[in-house]
């Protein structure tokens, strides 16, 4: 299996006044195409930071990120958004939908930025919302939906461009157990069907059990890296 993402010697330091915080310390990792990777770890261990750097949202202090063969560090800041739009989808703990737009408009947004024709993108957005079970909420705004529904909209938005990689930062963090497993069911089904690589940060071991591979982080280091088979054995 070829690598979808490869990170080499990634280090990220933040300066906070006089203090220098090392969020990531010389981390290397390879993620295969179609793999579902789960990142576990205590708060402040650098999970989000690593996710952001892999997605090109932040630049590392040292080290490099390759998406397939493309070196993100060499990419111009200007081209980053277009690259993300084409190859990546994002899901966040607090959904991050645009409050003034309806479900269907929110889902259409990546297509709008891509310059798609109005008719075509509305159809695609509608189809996608139907697939995540929101056929009755197409015209609702985020404030008119429950957390679970909003997260489904956000999943639809992440998948609308048929991305190669989906990044999810604690997507079930604000949801109850039942809704969480619903969301995970939808997401994993979609991702597996299209062979999309999924990288997910979570605190929830239950959620981690969906993953092909789990890594555990402490203080900017990866201290554990387990494949699914191994996880199953432990149980």
């Amino acid at each position, binding site marked *: 299996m070829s690598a979808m993402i490869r990170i080499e010697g990634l280090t990220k330091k933040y300066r906070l006044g006089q203090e220098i915080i090392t969020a990531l310390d010389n981390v290397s990792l390879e993620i295969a195409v179609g793999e579902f990777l789960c990142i576990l770890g205590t708060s402040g261990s650098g999970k989000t930071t690593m996710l952001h750097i892999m997605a090109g949202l932040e630049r590392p202090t040292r080290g490099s990120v390759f998406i397939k063969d493309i070196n993100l560090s060499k990419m111009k800041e200007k081209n980053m*958004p277009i690259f993300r739009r084409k190859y990546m989808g994002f899901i966040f703990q607090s959904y991050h939908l645009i409050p003034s737009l309806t479900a269907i408009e929110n889902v259409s947004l990546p297509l709008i930025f891509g310059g798609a024709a109005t008719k075509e993108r509305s159809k695609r957005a509608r189809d996608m919302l139907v697939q995540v079970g929101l056929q009755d909420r197409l015209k609702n705004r985020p404030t008119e939906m429950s957390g679970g529904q909003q997260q489904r909209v956000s999943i639809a*938005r992440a998948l609308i461009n048929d991305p190669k990689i989906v990044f999810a930062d604690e997507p079930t963090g604000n949801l109850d157990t039942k809704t969480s497993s619903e969301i995970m069911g939808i997401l994993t089904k979609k991702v597996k069907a299209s062979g999309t690589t999924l990288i997910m940060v979570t605190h929830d071991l239950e959620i981690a059990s969906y993953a092909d591979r789990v890594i555990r982080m402490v203080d900017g280091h990866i201290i554990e890296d387990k494949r699914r088979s191994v996880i199953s054995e432990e149980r």
Partner: protein
Amino acid sequence: MNNLDLLQLSGNSLWRRKVRTILTTLGVIIGTTSIVVMLSLGIGLNEMQRENMERWGSLTMIRVQQGMIFDAEGNPLKEGKQLNDEAVDELRSIDGVLAVSPVYNFGGEASYGRKRGGLNLIGLDASSMNQLEFTAEQGRLLEEGDRNVMVIGREVINNFRDEAFIRQMRKGMGMEGMMSQEEQDPGELLNQRISMTINARENKRIFGFTVVGILEGERTEHSYQAYIPIDDLKRMRDFGSNGNSRSSNMVIMEGVAHSRVSTASSKRSATQQNSDDYDYILVRTNNVEQSQKASQVIKDLGYNTWSMADQLEGIEKTSRTIQAILGGIGSITLLVAALGITNTMIMSIYERTREIGIMKVIGASFHDIYKMFLTEAGLIGFLGGIFGLCFSYIVSYIINRLSAGFMNQGMVGGEASSISVIPVWLTLFAVLFSILVGLLAGIYPAYRAVRLSPINAIRNE
């Protein structure tokens, strides 16, 4: 991102903050209105001046005169070139000149039936009269080959009084009698005979003319004059001056030999020291611009000229300055409105940091973000421009109504022209300019939105 989506997204975010959008737009409305109204006043003023000047002389006519040429400070430079037939030919060959007519001027006492009165005669080239901006209200203009005919202005008839009346006047009836005389119908003179008596030393001769046309226009420079073919006038002139200075048989000879007048006159001009020079030469051009150009060319040739177009140029220079000042005052208001737009946009970006960040994360390019905020600012400018324009029309209408009422009290009979005029170009200019102002005001906020880091937006959950 296609344009429709762009407009929709931007319109949507403006609509979301209605009150603020309306207040900001109001600033632009006031700014646009003040610019448009100020400029419309300047334009109205300009047009009024132009109308006034056109009453007193055509803007396409140049008068080439005798006399000294003065420089800009009013110091005499030199004597203008002689106004003879060579000059006429020279003027005729200038670019943009439609027609040229030499002119003699001659005043005297005239009679019509039992009435008498002073009359100012202007002799011009009969064949070119129709090209010199004359229009006949009744009858016709002078034509080639005309002899002993006359075309007169509308007011000429009022010069004539009954002899009995004049005698009364002389006895001291005074002005009241004269004032009480009714306006006479100018058409009364058509096809009538007006004669002028010229006294030379021992001779007296009567020159008779048939009125063939009445000119259009009241209270213009034409309306008090009588126009006759130049050869006729020359004969009268020669008779007058020869009778006084020379033998009378010359006069008689000339009376017989009408046909040779022109050759005789050109011969004499060489010997008789300019006394045969024309009083002035009229030059007609196509339009004001050509008139101004031709006037300059004629000046450069060394002639002394006078034209309404030249006067207009000076006046227009002044009114352009006035317009610039008025426009400047209006612009200050719009500048303040522009600052308002910038301020609103910056606040809006501050509030929407998260939203902008999300858009960037999910694939909005720098260009998209830039365009979105510029469009918002431009939309405010556009709305302000459109409503400001509507508002301007209302204000302009009110100003014109008020000023019309005011002016009608002051002067009788003068049709009140608008003092606030909004031409089509100003309409377009106003809308485009307010859009431009909006866009300019949006540049900095849009730039800030582009610079905004997406991570801060999505990190602070």
